[in-house]
Structures are given as C-alpha cells and as structure tokens.
C-alpha cells in the first residue's frame, strides 16, 4: 500500500465532523505550528518538502511563499483557490466535501506562515453544497478557538472566510480570482505586478490550490524532509488524481508521485484496467487543457522509458510526444471515443469560459469551436485542419492569461496525434453524421479508407 497523506483518515466514518476529525489528530498541526514554530520556519519546511502547486502549473509552493512582500508592511492575505473547474478534475471537491477541516487546518497554518490575518477560500459557484460544508466547518473552527482573535493564546489573529464565486472557469486564474473576490468582473490582471506584491486590494497575496494547502498540516507535523522522501526527483509527495473515462474504477486516488502510469492504470488498487475489452486509444493526464496522448506514448516515453506519474516524466518529450501532470484530471479513452468530438467538447468549454478581455482568446476560441463543430457533424472541409492548426498557433502565447494556451493545446495535440481522424471526418461526412461513428466502426476498421483516398 502506498502512503496516504491527504486521504489518510478518509475511511473513518464521520471525519467530516469536527469532533471526529479532532479525535483523530486533527488540528495538531496548528498547535505545533503556532506554539513551537516561527513563520519563517514553516516556510522553510514547506520549501524543504519540495511540494509543487497542485492546481496545474506545478510552481514550487515554498518559493511562491518566499516571494510575498513582507517589507512593505502592508497586510498580507492567503487565498485558497477552490475554483476547481477544469473538465476532468474533481479532486478538490472530494477533499472539501469529505474532510473539510483538513483544508481549514492547512489554511490556518499557511496564513500563520505568511503572517496573514485575513484569508479567504474562494469556491466556485457550482459547488454550493460544498460551500455550505465549508461554512459549517469554519463555524466549528471559530467555536473551538482555531480561528478568531488570539488563537491558542499565542496572540495570533486570523479571520477566514469562504467566498462563493458565480461559476466561472476563468476565476481559477489567480488574478481573475482576486478581481472576483474584490467584487469586480473576473478578468485576469496584467502581470506584473504579481499577486505576491500587489494582489487582493493591492496588498501582498498568495493564492494556492486546495490540495496544496491541505498538505501543509502534514508537512508541519512530519517535517518537510519526510514529505520530500516520497516521490521522484523534483516531484515530491503525493498527488490526488481524479480518474474518469473508460476505466473500471473511476474516482479520486491519492498516489505517490513516481508511480508508473501502467501500474496506476492497470493495478486493481487503482483504476483496474479498461472498462471492457475495447482497446485503449488515448489519455489525458492532467485535465482538459493538457495535450492528449495516443496509445504509443502512454506507458512509455518516446525514448522507451517507463512513463511515471511525475511532473517531469509526463512532460517528457515536450509537446511533441509528452503532456503534463496538470491538475491531475486523468481521462482515459477507448477506441469508441471520437477525438474530434472530444476536442470540440473541450473547445466549446473554453469558448464558453473565455472572459473576452483579450482578442486572440475571445475570438479564437469561438472560431475553433465552430470549425470543430462543423468537422464533427460532417460539414468540414479539407483546409479546416490546417486552419485549426494555424488558429491555435496564433492564440498560444499571445494572451494575457493561460486560458488561451489551455484552449490551444488540446486542439494542437489532437491534430498532432490524431490527424487521421480529422481527415476521416472531413472525407467521409456521411459516416460521421452517425453520432456513434466510432462506437460502430472504430478507427482501426476504417483506416484503410483513408489510405485509399490518398492513392487516388
């Protein structure tokens, strides 16, 4: 059995409740941190742990904390990013729903480390029931003296609020989140200045993912070195993976980073293999915005090494033959899935969620969606494939925030690895007008049609 950090106590009935959580060692991290450690010591521990931001970008968390501007003397804030909206990712919801006090405990310690006295959890609008769970948990924490004035008699004050967004993917981007938290329209800000210098109300702010913050109490209790001993290289600790798609056991799993993709996918402890006897076609390791990978690059990298569940190994090969760990939204497809339809679905999402602030993303996402929709429904043209390739290349890197990149990458990867499917859609429109086209006739069976058309 692999080690569990976040989901260690998840099997205990009633862990959602304060009493049960406390009885099982909950809030001991706060006691240790506030009574025996200085803020700088905690930051050092987190740095030693090597934990990287679990929201998707994988930026080292300790480093991020050390950037916060303490010299200016302005009030500082911690904002927990619970605006988990990436298609395929549902790990934070699981964590907050089943063990909410873990997040609150982490938020208290992190706020103390950052010397923040006012912190927020920003949760997406669609998670209304989780919002209520967190509100209840925060109330319990206040009632038991973990929040408020003079916590544990140490003289440290902290107010923690949970704020509900209105349901926008873009508000998961840290500066858009801050804008939304300030009560404005959730448009990403132009960086610099970075939130560590000028964030919430122009005051130094750190924005961290729920999963990252939830790991802090364990790091404080057990030491950063202990955390760093798990994992491979710069990918330390454990990671929650939310698995979905054509697999036997979908759900949220905590894995030690460094597990092979093969083991994760096929062992009974985790996903248990494919859902039925149809073969594996593709997978997305980190939520909808990371590149999709075809079967030949899933278990092995292009160099023939084992593909591991780490930041580095999944990114091995760059965008040509690699992908990214992202936020851990693990989506598996068998050969009945249509990559074009899947890409269209993602594009539709990004089109809907683009904030509309900068031109390439506002116009480009809509354009890509329309083209993909045409191709998928049998109205595509041969030149549309090149057009899509060109549009994605012109969005990528030219936008204010990473949403533009997130919209461009899946399209690029789909064309890069599954161009034949696009060609099939364009050349055999009558076949793809049947919505179950690949369920009835997978690509394997129709591939010969494409080679025929090339010969003509």
């Amino acid at each position: 059995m692999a080690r569990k950090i976040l989901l260690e106590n998840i099997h205990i009935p009633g862990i959602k409740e304060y009493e049960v959580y406390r009885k099982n060692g909950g809030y001991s991290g706060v006691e240790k941190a506030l009574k025996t450690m200085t803020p700088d010591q905690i930051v050092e521990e987190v740095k030693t742990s090597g934990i990287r931001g679990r929201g998707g970008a994988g930026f080292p968390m300790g480093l991020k904390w050390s950037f916060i501007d303490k010299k200016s003397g302005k009030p500082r804030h911690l904002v927990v990013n619970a605006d988990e909206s990436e298609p395929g990712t549902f790990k934070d919801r699981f964590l907050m729903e089943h063990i909410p006090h873990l997040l609150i405990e982490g938020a208290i310690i992190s706020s103390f480390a950052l010397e923040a006295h006012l912190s927020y959890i920003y949760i997406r609008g669609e998670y209304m029931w989780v919002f209520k769970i967190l509100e209840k948990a925060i109330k319990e924490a206040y009632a038991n003296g973990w929040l408020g004035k003079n916590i544990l008699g140490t003289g440290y004050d902290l107010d923690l609020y949970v704020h509900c967004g209105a349901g926008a993917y873009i508000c998961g981007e840290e500066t858009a989140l801050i804008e939304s938290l300030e009560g404005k329209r959730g448009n990403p800000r132009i960086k610099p200045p970075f939130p560590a210098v000028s964030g919430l109300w122009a005051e130094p702010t750190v924005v961290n993912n729920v999963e990252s913050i939830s790991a802090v109490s364990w790091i404080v209790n057990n030491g950063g070195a202990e955390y760093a001993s798990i994992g491979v290289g710069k990918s330390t600790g454990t990671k929650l993976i939310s698995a979905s798609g054509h697999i036997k056991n979908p759900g949220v799993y905590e894995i030690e980073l460094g597990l092979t993709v093969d083991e994760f996918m096929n062992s009974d402890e985790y996903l248990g293999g494919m859902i039925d006897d149809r073969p594996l076609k593709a997978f997305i390791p980190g939520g909808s915005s990371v590149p999709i990978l075809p079967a030949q690059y899933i278990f092995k990298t292009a160099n023939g090494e084992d593909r591991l569940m780490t930041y580095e190994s999944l990114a091995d090969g760059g965008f040509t033959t690699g992908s990214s760990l992202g936020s851990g939204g693990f989506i598996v497809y068998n050969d009945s899935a249509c990559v074009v339809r899947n890409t269209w679905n993602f594009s539709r999402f990004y089109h809907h969620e683009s904030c509309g602030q900068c031109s390439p993303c506002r116009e480009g996402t809509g354009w890509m969606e329309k083209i993909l929709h045409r191709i998928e429904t049998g109205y595509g043209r041969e030149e549309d494939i090149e057009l899509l390739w060109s549009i994605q290349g012109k969005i990528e890197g030219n936008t204010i925030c990473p949403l533009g990149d997130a919209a461009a990458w899946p399209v690029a990867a789909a064309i890069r690895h599954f161009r034949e499917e696009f060609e099939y859609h364009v050349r055999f429109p009558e076949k793809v007008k049947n919505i179950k086209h690949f369920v009835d006739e997978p690509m394997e069976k129709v591939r010969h049609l494409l080679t025929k058309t090339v010969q003509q």
Partner: protein
Amino acid sequence: MKVTIDEHTIEVEPGTTVLQAARMIGGDCVPPTMCYYSKLEDCGGKCRCCLVEISKGSERDPRPMPKLQPSCVTAVQDGMEVKSATSPRALEARQAVTEFLLINHPLDCPVCDQAGECDLQNLAYGNKNFKTRYIEQKRTYEPEDIGPYIQLHMNRCVLCYRCVKLADQLTPERVHGVIGRGDHAQISTYISKAIDNNFSGNMIDVCPVGALTDKTFRFESRVWFNKPFNAHRDCPHCSGKVTLWMFGDHVQRVTARKDEYHEVEEFICNECRFDHKKAEDWVIEGPRKFEKDSVLNVNNYTRQLKKVKIDTDDLVLEGRKQDQKKISMSEFPFDQAEMEAIKKANEE
C-alpha cells in the same frame, strides 16, 4: 534608462513603457494600438495589437523574453532591446490579432460613421492582401439604446474597454460596462437610456471603431467631406478647445482635438459637443492638421499653396544671358527695342 527599439536607441525615464518609448522614436517602429489610451490610466494590454519581441531583457538579465510582450504595458528596463517592425514573429502575431478582430466585425464600413477615422480600418489596411478564412456567421447583438446622444453598435465593438475606463475615470458614476463573457461579452447599460453624464460624449472619441458614434452626426456626412477646423469657445465646464467638422458654413460635428495616434488632447463636455452647432458660437482658429496618410486629408486644405506660374514661353523669347551679348556684327549696336528687352530681362 536606455532602450533600443528596432536599432534606434533612446534614453527614457524609468517607468516608461516600450510603446511610449517607441512613440518617442516614431516612424515604423511604433506598434499599432486598439485598446491602449495614453490619457486613461490602466488602459491597455487587451487587444494584443502592440505585441513586440524583446530580444534582450535588460543589461542585468540579457535573456530574451520567450513570449511576445504587449508593449503598452511592458515597462522599459535599462539596456532592453526590442524588435517591433523588424520582428517577423511580432508582425505575424499582429496580423493574427487583426484577423481575430475582424472575424466578427461587420464589414459595414460603407454605412459606418467611423469610416475614414477608424483604427480597425487602418489596422486591417496595414495588413495587406487580406483574405478572410472565416466562413461562419458573424456574431450579432440586439440593438440597444444607451442614451440620447450616443449610438451604440455593439456588432462593431472590439471590447477595448476604453469607454469603460473613461467612464470610470472621467465621470463620477459609471452606468455602463461589460456584461457577459467571451465572444458574447458586450458593452451595455443594462437599464436602457442610462447614459446622461455631461462628459459621456468622450466615449465616442475614445472608441477606436464605430461602436460608439455621435447621434447628432449620424448619416450627416462622410468624415472626409468635412473640413476640420480648430476652434474654441468660453465653456464653463471644459477647456472648450475642439475640432469643428464643417461643411460650407455649417458645423456638422464637434469633436475633441485628436493627436496623431487618434488620442484626445483635452476631453470636452457634452454641451460643447452636442449643443453648439453654429459657427458663430465658436472662435475658429484655423484648419486642423492631420497625419499625411489619413483619408481625412483628402478634403483638407491645411497647407498654403502658391499659385503655380508656368513661364516657359517668356523665357524662351528672352533667351539666355550669354546670348544677349553681341558676338557677331559687334560694331553695330543694339537698337532701342533690343536694349529695352535686355534691360527688362536683367531687372527680373
């Protein structure tokens, strides 16, 4: 601080943006802008028209920046080297942005009041050989009445946010904004006919396209048929310095004075803009100058022209000076008529 843009080096104050530095240099290296407005704070970074390549970050950190940077919000570092018009990457990205801006922009320039002074027109024109690759239907919006003076054509909007920033910074209360998101985001008052602030008319001037136009000038005249004059009046609300757009003796439109980047020099009030359409209300200073390549110059007599006199015939008759000397039959002097002709020629 020293910054080099397209091989031109210039010394600037710290805090200057790359775009401002480029404008100081002038010429080809000035990137086009749709959303940036130097007179408004925090306005820019959105349209991505002004992307430049930064080939050297600074003297201290000479690494090039991997991504193209929006020059309007990128501050100059000491020793920075920027490629603007000399960077194929930046030019391609700008071209792409133009294409993106145009896919949903209606091509109704023939009936658009902004035509001739439209930044998007100029941007698209600068693209050269533009063919659309967009075959889908363009996005459209329901018409909306936002107030008595300003006509909103949401279909033409490029969401530059200039009018929003202007209302934030120039008027006490902003009553319009952006609602919705993505390519269905729109400028709206939500409550119709809500815009009535006395400085709201400046929204028309800052709008780079024909999304916000002057209702009192609507379909009155094409802008290039007007003669623009600088004029002023004694106004209790604003500086009163305006440009009058005249047709004969009629004032058809009043706008603020715009510089070469089409940015207003001094904002004016609605009273000056909409309520004083008689020439006698104004003190006319003289013709307004525009940059050379603007269509607005077509009908604009800003230069004083000398009358051209063609005097080839006279010169032929007079002959050259050396021919006026008698070289043959020198013992016979000129007669009276000849002497007079020579005298006249010498005098001139």
